């Protein structure tokens, strides 16, 4: 058998494995995609502009806030500053993935960088440099992109006829998947400390509706993990 034949099914199967790993998160995002589409139409955007938000911007929370700002007619500077604030966590994902994606060819960096959402970071951020597979990440990221855009399209076309899917509690799928990804990684006390500090900080900051709760809680957890590591090493 020549190598060409062996490589092709491998790529294909990695792509499929990534798609399958992403399914719970793709399903969980459907209500928000529907909402993004119907809210954009409600806010007076044209169907093309509404779909462009998902197809080009491709950032759930930033899209909903952007739609609100377009509706309110705020200036471009305000829009960009607000977007910068919401999107700041992506800098953290980008720097964390530098070792894995930075050495790939340009087309891979552009594709995976473009698809680097919370969800893709969840699926591939935990993988070690050796275990990271571009085709797996592409399958996860691209299937998620398609799902988000299809949900948006349905929201645009049929927004007012769709029952309130967000009341079913589908966001639990996000929690369930993330739990399944985090727990096996808690192999030492510094990681446990990082997780516990991020958990307490995130709940507390969300309860007082602190802007940027996610960033502060994440960095707090990382810092706590690092400090615990230094202390255990010294002991």
């Amino acid at each position: 058998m020549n190598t060409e034949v062996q490589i092709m099914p491998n790529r294909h199967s990695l792509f499929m494995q990534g798609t399958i790993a992403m399914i719970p998160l793709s399903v969980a995002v459907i209500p928000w995609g529907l909402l993004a589409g119907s809210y954009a139409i409600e806010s007076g955007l044209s169907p093309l502009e509404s779909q462009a938000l998902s197809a080009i911007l491709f950032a759930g929370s930033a899209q909903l806030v952007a739609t609100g700002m377009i509706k309110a007619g705020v200036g471009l500077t305000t829009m960009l500053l607000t977007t910068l604030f919401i999107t700041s966590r992506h800098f953290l994902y980008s720097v964390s993935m530098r070792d894995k994606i930075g050495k790939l060819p340009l087309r891979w960096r552009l594709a995976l960088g473009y698809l680097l959402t919370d969800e893709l970071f969840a699926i591939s951020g935990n993988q070690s440099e050796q275990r990271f597979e571009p085709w797996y990440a592409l399958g996860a990221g691209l299937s998620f992109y398609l799902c988000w855009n299809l949900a948006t399209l349905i929201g645009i076309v049929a927004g007012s006829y769709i029952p309130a899917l967000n009341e079913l509690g589908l966001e639990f799928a996000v929690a369930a998947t993330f739990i399944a990804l985090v727990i096996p990684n808690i192999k030492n006390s510094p990681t446990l400390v990082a997780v516990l500090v991020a958990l307490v900080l995130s709940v507390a900051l969300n309860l007082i509706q602190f802007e940027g709760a996610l960033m502060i809680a994440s960095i707090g957890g990382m810092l706590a993990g690092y400090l615990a590591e230094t202390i255990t090493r010294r002991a």
Partner: protein
Amino acid sequence: MTLLAILAMAALVFFSRYVFLEPKLPLRLAPQIQSMLGYSGPAVLTAILAPIVFAPEDELWVAADNPYLLCAILASVIIYKTGNVLLTTVLSMVIFLILNNLVF
């Protein structure tokens, strides 16, 4: 105009996702920062999931009739026992949907 605003925001979001993936960007991370980044996965994921589980309706809800909390505990047990991500997600999600929409 709206389309231009969308493009400008998209450029900003893409920049935030891509910038550190660029090998030409001269960035040498101090070893301390690299060890910190080693905890970024667990820390970020926990920070996203914690409010869904402990405050699904924007109030602290630590009680035996919080289906989010119950099924989060269930998911933790399943992944600890089996190590199977897909099984954990599907099983805890099915039980959650039953509890959340039919039982409580």
